[in-house]
């Protein structure tokens, strides 16, 4: 269904005093799509005292930044954010809306899509414009990563969330110019159905897995808390983070926050060392974006070796101590 909607709008989440990397990636792909359509790229920012981030969005490629600066949207509350973004979309009338597949994006996108009588596709790894129809081709993993599907939404705005690190951000360009437009929050009190009474951070000690450039991850075969201590030694040596597939988390050998996979974290480190991990599709969905995968597994036919660049076929209990020892020596020299 063609509409008079035009342009690409990217919802930019703010975290730790800057536009989140995934929002910069959204602006990067958004710029590409907008150029291909010959249309404008807009950024949308919500929060309290967030006007200063508009320039960042412009440096990352936005032509126009819509800012909702209001104490009522200081902290994330799904009902409020869905309602504010729904109103913003009605005002901006974009043809395409992009968000990160974050805690917020994964719930805002479908809810907002329903209210705008359109559809969303979540967790896209590729976005492109069909050269004939000019519609958005949205590619996302399905069947736990065994396959990928390309969807086309027939209504506007075409809403997509993108997977972290699947698309590239532009180098920020401080000389870029853009327009900043303030829009009111217009919160409808009736929209508020749930109340967040407490926000609890369960921080893991050391480097956060999603920020680490090296991740050492263990699977079912590690077998115990003690086993993970050995992996931790290697991770610490390389200033990396510790991860796991689902079974070790289910068995409480390691906290749930370390889980890599479709139901856990989706990460894209430079190096991913998979120890005793078979490489189920669910797990690979979380780490296949790594630049280099190194696998240690006793089964030569294990799926992980189809993704790995380097590997050892052997028992991790014998391989790991010698590997850690040798790396220690190499890194000291």
């Amino acid at each position: 269904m063609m509409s008079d909607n035009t342009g690409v709008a990217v919802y930019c989440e703010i975290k730790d005093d800057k536009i989140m990397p995934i929002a910069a990636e959204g602006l990067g792909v958004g710029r590409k799509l907008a150029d291909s359509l010959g249309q404008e790229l807009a950024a949308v920012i919500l929060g309290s005292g967030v006007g200063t981030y508009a320039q960042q969005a412009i440096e990352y490629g936005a032509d126009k930044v819509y800012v909702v600066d209001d104490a009522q949207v200081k902290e994330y509350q799904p009902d409020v954010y869905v309602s504010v973004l729904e109103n913003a979309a009605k005002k901006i009338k974009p043809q395409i809306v992009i968000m990160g597949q974050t805690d917020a994006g994964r719930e805002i996108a479908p809810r907002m899509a329903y209210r705008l009588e359109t559809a969303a596709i979540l967790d896209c790894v590729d976005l492109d414009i069909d050269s004939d129809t000019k519609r958005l081709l949205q590619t996302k993993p399905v069947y736990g990563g065994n396959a990928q599907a390309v969807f086309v939404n027939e209504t506007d705005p075409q809403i997509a969330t993108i997977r972290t690190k699947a698309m590239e951000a532009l180098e920020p360009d401080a000389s870029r110019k853009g327009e900043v437009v303030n829009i009111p929050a217009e919160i409808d009190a009736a929209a508020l159905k749930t109340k967040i009474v407490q926000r609890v951070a369960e921080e893991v000690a050391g480097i956060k897995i999603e920020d680490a450039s090296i991740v050492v991850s263990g699977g079912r075969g590690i077998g115990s808390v003690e086993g993970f201590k050995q992996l931790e030694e290697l991770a610490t040596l390389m200033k990396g983070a510790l991860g796991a597939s689902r079974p070790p988390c289910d068995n409480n050998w390691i906290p749930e926050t370390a889980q890599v996979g479709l139901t856990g974290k989706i990460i894209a480190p430079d190096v991913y060392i998979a120890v005793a991990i078979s490489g189920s599709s669910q797990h690979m969905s979380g780490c296949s974006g790594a630049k280099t995968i190194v696998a240690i597994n006793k089964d030569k036919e294990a799926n992980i070796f189809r993704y790995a660049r380097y590997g050892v076929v052997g028992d991790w209990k014998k391989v790991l101590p010698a590997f850690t020892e040798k790396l220690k020596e190499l890194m000291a020299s």
Partner: protein
Amino acid sequence: MNIIVCVKQVIDPEAPPASFKIDTEHNKADMHGAPPVIDPYGEYAVEAALRLKEANGGTITIMVMGVNLLREVVKKPLAMGADELILLEDEAFTKGDGWSTAQALALAIKKKGDYDLILCGREASDTNAGQTGLAIAEILGLSCINLARKIEVADSTLKVERVNLSGYDVIESSLPAVITISNEVGEPRYPTIKGIMAAKKIEPVIWKPNDIGLDAHASVKTKLHRLFQPVHEGKCEFAEGDTEEEMAVNLANKLRESKTI
């Protein structure tokens, strides 16, 4: 406390990746030789419902939508301890997209009526869409909590722990509400022999599109353009050696020489 749990019959996501095949002509996938199962993500929702029933009493109604629903598969939640089974079984239910799925389920939930909570898995293991529960909440105008790991009900107020990247939020809401369940809720229980025997005696209620007042021209907003399997070339370079220790040393050397580490 009356709970409706929406689950799905899917191709077995735990089957070996090698048995996964795509029929490109029909844009359909198949696990060769592996029978379908109840969606594992949906089983977490069933488990959450059973724990709520243990704490607060009430009934659990399972709703499954699809076609060629194998009775021994869709009865698993009953064997786990649920009370009733409603099947939305018709070819027409399979032709749509995420929206038409949510629309049909919302109509069926309305027809069923008398519910306090609607639970769904966080996503389905086949489509990985992650939208059905959220969409049902929007259609029915209910409170919506995504990715719960713990649910408590006291004085008809919900208290839910909602998982996020850095920990969790504690959320309060009135009833009725829609909650999607994350795997952190805990492992789904196995059916007991007693449960399996009881499930055998429960006849599913079957609803067709007409029964729930579904418009045959329900709007479909998303088209599947293409379904394909990404190729992973097996280019793994194996570290050799006579012993595992030797292989380990060679692996470390390889990583250093290639400047990987």
